[in-house]
């Protein structure tokens, strides 16, 4: 899970304070592992330093929660690129795919198209592994099979998610 990109994605929806960002992150992406406040603010500081967010106001009373973060064009471009590019097909990428789908639905982006792109990337990798299996030794075949079965599991998840996008969209945009 990329915390900086996920926070940027949440900011692409609307400007927000650190506390609200953490609350939303924990609700959708934390899954029992809340994001520490320190990591939220250190990440936001790095994003500000790199020009991907700006701080719009610092209210009276000081304290980090007085800062309101707004995504910049640079940050929005990075989110767009991240969402549209398929994840490198490899085992155990479910959390990244999950974050992309949820954020795409929150941002009213074409999540179904992103899933199609990811499906193509997965099948391309499966073709490569199948060629390795067909042309290699039994050991090569066993290693290729390990990758193939994991990628197949991802694909089944992609299919199920694709079939549930409408319901999922309602759930994340309440």
């Amino acid at each position, binding site marked *: 899970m990329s915390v900086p990109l996920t926070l940027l994605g949440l900011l692409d929806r609307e400007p927000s304070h650190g506390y609200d960002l953490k609350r939303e992150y924990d609700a959708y992406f934390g899954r029992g592992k809340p994001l520490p406040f320190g990591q939220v603010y250190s990440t936001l500081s790095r994003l500000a330093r790199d020009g991907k967010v700006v701080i719009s106001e610092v209210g009276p009373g000081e304290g980090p929660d007085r800062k309101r973060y707004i995504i910049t064009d640079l940050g929005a471009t990075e989110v767009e690129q991240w969402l549209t590019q398929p994840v490198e097909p490899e085992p155990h990428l479910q959390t990244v795919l999950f974050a992309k789908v949820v954020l795409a639905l929150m941002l009213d982006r074409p999540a179904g198209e992103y899933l199609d792109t990811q499906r193509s990337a997965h099948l391309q990798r499966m*073709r490569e592994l199948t060629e390795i299996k067909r042309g290699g030794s039994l050991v090569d075949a066993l290693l290729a099979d390990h990758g193939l079965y994991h990628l197949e599991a991802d*694909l089944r998840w992609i299919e199920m998610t694709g*079939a549930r996008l409408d319901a999922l969209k309602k759930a994340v945009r309440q």
Partner: protein
Amino acid sequence: MTIAIEARDVVFSFGQTPALRGASIAVDPGEIVAIMGASGSGKSTLLHCLAGILVPDSGEILFDGARVDSMTEAQRSSLRRDRFGFVFQFGQLVPELTTAENVALPLLLSGTRRAEALRKAYGWFERLGLEGLEQRRPGELSGGQAQRVALARGLVAGPEVLFADEPTGALDSLTGEQVMDLLVTAAREQGTTVILVTHEPRVAAYADREVSVRDGRVNAPDRIAS
């Protein structure tokens, strides 16, 4: 490069139930294409339209420059017999014939003399690791053996296009992969175009590319889309 077989904006309904709603696909000569999709997506219907088994309600099927959809039943039957090959989920071998006669069947139906047809059929037994099974009846074969016999029957006449509808659907994973390996190897050696319908990604991974059918339309990310 010329196109081997193509569907253009094909619509087909089973009574009031639409199965294809404007499906398009173009396949190059010698290409192996997997058509994927969920149950009821229309993928098998698309294969049957491409193969001239079903006639679309509208749209075009083109093979070798000719409109398959406007051919007579006799012309389509001739096309299927002489230029296409088929492998289905359950081998659909003729139980009364020996396996060798089953493999030779497309040649016999095309008018090849029996001795010549059987000679060619026997060649496929060696090629597909089926030596010694030539005189058995289909009921005496394992599922994997029967499907390899069905594959030999589909390829024995040197078809220009092989249509394979869930060819491994009734087999366990390992046997299914052996059948796919043989299918791809034989098709490449012969330069046969293959249209493969499957819902299994690991089977589709044997193809050169995949298209997915959803709600009766083809989504082909790397090529044309309907």
